[in-house]
């Protein structure tokens, strides 16, 4: 139990997926203009990453490993993730319209979010078991959620500030991300 909690803390804060591993930068920079949309994206990523790390872990340990097909993992994982995102989207559309209305736009964007594939491959590289994989997936996506929500809050404030002309838009966003990365770097010494 303690190891699981520690893993959760490590993946969510110390090794933050966006700010120290640079995975999932596109949505982090692209969908962080408003707090509401950022939170929606964060929740959608959390659902998909946790689910996909469970399924890819089962597939790897149950099918690929016994058949000695480990080298196929990249191909299998990316297809599974793409299919999973489609399935989640269809299921949401059928069973929960309000949730679909809130998250639907973000779901197709998640297939090419490298955080999803990154977590699945990390689980394989670290030879994580099923439970560890799921906790790792959940912690990592929790880190993504925290980062994108904090970023959106900061950007909403920055929008009212007097930013130098050439730093408007992307440059000031990147600078903010850099400062956040320094702050998160502090967690390394916990």
């Amino acid at each position: 139990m303690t190891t699981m909690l520690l893993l959760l803390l490590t993946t969510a804060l110390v090794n933050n997926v966006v700010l120290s591993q640079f995975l999932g930068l596109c949505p982090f920079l692209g969908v962080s203009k408003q707090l509401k949309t950022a939170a929606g994206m964060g929740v959608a990523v959390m659902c998909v990453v946790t689910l996909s790390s469970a399924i890819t872990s089962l597939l790897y340990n149950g099918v690929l490993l016994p058949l000695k097909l480990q080298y196929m993992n990249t191909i299998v994982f990316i297809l599974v993730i793409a299919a999973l995102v489609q399935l989640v989207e269809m299921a949401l559309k059928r069973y929960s319209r309000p949730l679909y209305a809130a998250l639907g736009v973000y779901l197709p964007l998640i297939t090419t979010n490298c955080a999803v594939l990154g977590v699945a491959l990390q689980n394989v590289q670290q030879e994580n078991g099923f439970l560890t994989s799921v906790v790792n997936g959940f912690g990592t996506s929790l880190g993504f959620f925290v980062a994108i929500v904090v970023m959106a809050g900061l950007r909403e404030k920055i929008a009212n500030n007097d930013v130098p002309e050439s730093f408007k838009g992307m440059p000031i966003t990147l600078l903010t991300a850099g400062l956040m990365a320094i702050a998160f770097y502090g967690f390394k010494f916990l």
Partner: protein
Amino acid sequence: MFKQAWERLYNGLVKENPTFVLMLGMCPTLAVTTAAMNGLGMGLSTAAVLTMSNLMISALRNVIPQKVRMPAYIVIVATFVTVVQLLMQAYVPSLYDALGIYIPLIVVNCIILGRAEAYASKHPVWPSLFDGLGMGLGFTVALVCIGAVREFLGNGSVFGLTILPDTVDKIAIFTLAPGAFFVLACLTALQNKLKAPSATNTPKAKNRTCAGNCAACPSGCMGCAADAQAQKEGDDR
């Protein structure tokens, strides 16, 4: 034929440089450029995958049905990535260890699917091959430049060769994660200042082809995400 090949190479290296102008594939750009050598390795492996996948997709462009083209492209790209990964593991193990998880993640690099959709699926084999080569080399040049700057500022060396003497204090943060953001921020700010063409300061094309599918989006994830957000905001109203 040579003229066309040269035109594609020039397009990829300068006119539509994937990193500096199109701002695609930001994740590897920021993650592996801690040293010039890592940038070179990542750039060349991406270029190899991009060239081969462009060639294959262009050759199969009349065979792949329109509806399932995305999964087909992804499988082709993932195959070449696996080949490159195994080759690197066998022949350059130190680079393989340094790049780690970012090698298999070439699959989800926007540049590759972007070029497949925007160019290789519509043009004959030879131009597509040189398009992939040009884009790949443009990406390599950009990664090496960013890597060299970060290595010089953070470590006082370029390509592992020490340039600054030990008596000079180095700014170690440039080889760490935050440094990547700062270098790229200064670069885009400079582009804005000099009015150099870049995805961040040119008016975006009105009719994008992405329709919510990021992989199908030639203007890449960021444009697509912005689209999605605009659409969402429209829905809210």
